């Protein structure tokens, strides 16, 4: 189980990092989302993997560690706020610079044919 969990985190990290290094904002946001899944699972795992031991008093014989759960719960919500902020940042970038490149500069070369189709301009 531990190996499986570690592989899951590894896959999330690898996909997240690969997307993080892309040149357009949308893949980068997706990459960060994947990365934050990985990080949240990792933080959660610091309390170890327990089956059927939810930390609600009186529902189980022993309880899993509630502290990482509380931390991860807020991390999930804050992670959403960060994602939303990034999405808006990239939309603003799109509005101001007319393209969605992460370097945030106005386009120097005309858009490729494929992109013209894609944006419909």
């Amino acid at each position: 189980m531990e190996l499986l969990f570690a592989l899951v985190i590894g896959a999330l990290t690898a996909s997240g990092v690969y997307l993080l290094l892309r040149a357009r904002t949308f893949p980068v946001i997706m990459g960060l989302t994947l990365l934050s899944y990985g990080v949240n699972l990792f933080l959660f795992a610091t309390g170890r993997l327990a089956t059927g031991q939810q930390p609600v008093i009186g529902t189980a014989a022993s309880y899993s560690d509630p502290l990482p759960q509380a931390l991860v719960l807020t991390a999930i919500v804050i992670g959403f706020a960060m994602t939303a902020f990034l999405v808006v940042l990239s939309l603003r970038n799109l509005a101001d610079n007319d393209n969605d490149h992460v370097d945030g500069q106005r386009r120097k070369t005309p858009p490729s044919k494929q992109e013209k189709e894609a944006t419909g301009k």
Partner: protein
Amino acid sequence: MSLPLVVLLPFLGAIAAPLFAQGGRTAIAIASSVPALIALAALFPHWAVLSAGDTVLHTYEWLPALGLSFSFRLDGLALLFALLILVIGLLVIIYSHYYLKAKENVAKFYSLLLCFKGSMLGIVLSGNLLLMLIFWELTSLTSFLLISFWTHKQDARRGARMALAITGGGGLALLAGILLIGNIVGSFELDDVLAASEQIKAHTLYPVALTLVLLGAFTKSAQFPFHFWLPHAMQAPTPISAYLHSATMVKAGIFLMARLYPALAGTEQWFYMVSFTGMATLLLGAYIAMFKHDLKGLLAYSTVSHLGLITLLLGMGTQLAAVAAIFHVINHATFKASLFMAAGIIDHETGTRDMRRINGLWRYMPHTATLAMVAASSMAGVPLLNGFLSKEMFFAESLQLNLPGLWAWVPPIIATLAGIFSVAYSARFVHDVFFNGKPVDLPIFPPHEPPRYMKFPVEILVFACIMVGVFPAVSVGPLLFSAASATLGGDVPDYQLAILHGFNLPLLMSFLAFFGGLLMYTQRRRFFDFHAQLREVDGKAVFEFAVSEIEKLAHRFTEWLENGSLQRYATLLVVSVIAVAAMPLAENGFHIGENGLSPVDWPTGIAAGVLVVSALATAFWHRERFYALVLLSVVGLVVALTFARFSAPDLAMTQLSVEVVTIVLLMLALYYMPSWTPMESSQGRRIRDALIALAAGTGMTLITLAMLTQPFSSISEFFLENSKPGGGGTNVVNVILVDFRGFDTLGEITVLAIAALGIYAMLKNTALTPPPGDGLGHPWTRDHYPLMLRQIARPMLPLALMVSVYIFLRGHNLPGGGFIAGLITSVALILQYIASGMIWTQDRIPFRYHNVIGLGLLFATIAGAGSLAFGYPFLTTTFGYITWPVVGKFEVASALVFDLGVYLAVIGATLLALVSIGRLSPHSAIKSKKESA
């Protein structure tokens, strides 16, 4: 209290003086004089104590662990310098009043001047070396601002920068030196350091400490080879030059050497380093001064030369030489300040400082000319003036040096030679300016005497020159004695302050210097011709060259590192993180912990497989954004299931609802964005990135595996035990959030609120036109709000709200709570926006989301602050039970109010973010409608 007051007053004055700027130039000048007057009055009562050779010490603790204290110490030496700083400072203020033109920024001028004065007083009155260093750096900074006072002049800015670089660099060396001394002695208190003289000199690090301290002193006092900043600092307004280069700034280095004289002097290293530096500076300054055509340039190099003289005296190491050094500090301050002021008057009245043009001014301003001639004679060392006395002592001491063989002749010869130069440049100052034919092409013609009281400070100073010169014992005797006593550590030799000590060798040297100098001046043409053949090494050019080279290097490095590409920064960041994380792994190797691995059950294995495949597929097909997004949502759902699988129901519910909101958010973003990612990276780059990603993924796998197989202990026992009895809830995760770690949660919802407001602000005046189709050639559906969805969504709303209330209320005891309930409510509302459109939904929502966020934060804070009213710390919770009809026994906890705050903040933030994005499109006419309402 009076000592700290003396230092503090000018700083207070610097704040207060500009307030008087409205009242006119006279008002601000008077206001600026007040601190000095009070300070003089505050110093006066200590005079008797000091005459007896005692010191006054006022100490307040500051950072005892670092050895830093607010320690102020007054002894004879400190008093002498403090008086020079205060009195000449006052005269400079009077002088400036007439010197500054009406359009100048007088408030800035006086404010900076007072700051500088306070810093100088801080140096001389500090009883702690670290405290002194702080003031030392303050003088560097304030003098930088003063020298560059005319910020529009490039030369002024450059001169100021150079002064700052040199003296600031010296300050760094001094810091190191002081730290070494403090380490050797075990204290930074001046009294301890002065008492530990033997200990310091015996220490192996003494040469290092000495060199570092002297570097600080030499740079500040413009000693060779750091002298070149001083002439370029002449770009300052003349009152500033008069102040900085006579009594203060450059004297700080001299003061430092005198201050630490008992602790550091008396060794061979001290003798060679200090006296030879002084000798070189003395000769070089005097020689160059002769050839300067600029009035202030001549005075600047003369200052360099006199500073060298004082340094040489301090370096000689004999007691009488030290007395002479202190004496010359007084004399130089008086005659040099008056000369600078006279030069300023001439500049003010003629419009130039070029001695080739200023000639024959005697006819136009006899009064100023008389004053300048007396001061210049003092500089040259003419009898009956103060400069003569200390120079005579200098000559006498130069004969006393016990150097072997013919070397014994070197100091007196150099002294006489410097004396000759100094007479020659003084003669030039007098003859070239006031006589020597007629003025040539003056910008202001005819020149005339300045305003009456502009000359007043000069008169005072010249009067002091004469008084000291004629009645030395009466006028400065006691002050000099107490200062010398403090410098020498109480051991003052017998010395006579008399005009003549009989006909002896020093007097002969004076005669030689005087007539040699006059001869040299009359023959100046030859010397000028000789000097013209020499190639002048311009310190400034070397400095500027070095600076520009360093700048270029730094620029190239920055360009290389920071080329403006976020993609590149992200790569560098990730690679560095991998490298840092890999280091311990490479060092210790990888081990599976002793807990070993547990077996995998089938359903979990399949879910994990789905997750891994979806994650990799998201990355693989990322260019087709819509499909990637669908895959991403699969990942998120499986993550939620993972939480549920491993005993975290709260997390599962949170993840599930956040997942819905996130995907809606990303879909919304995709509506405006191109739905394809163009192929931009080369294949090599993609392979490189894939390798980086692989390394990161492998690293995380190994770390997770190592961590999961280690035995662990947690602090959570406490939470599990106290959740019910202490927090009144059985859902430990929720109790941690709203009770044990409530303050964290308060911070977190604040972050959430700020992010949402940031989103709102960032999109306030932005408009984006979405593309007409989805990028695959399909147009958007013409049915804007699908009928079926609308019909289902509306009845869903009350149901969803009820569920969220239920989840909210049970949160304290069963999985649920404010975060989750807030997200469920948000999802229910978002569904209405999707199903029925912005306008329809917004019209039916009677509040603004900003207010909801605010209300949420308010509730959470009130719930926390409520406990303060009962004398408990912030965010202490309480709970009790009430029995309701039908429902039965029900628990009420104050944490519920806090959780309500969380609930509202989450709703407000989530919806504000999404609605801000939704209304970007011009299709949602809501924007203009709402805003105009």
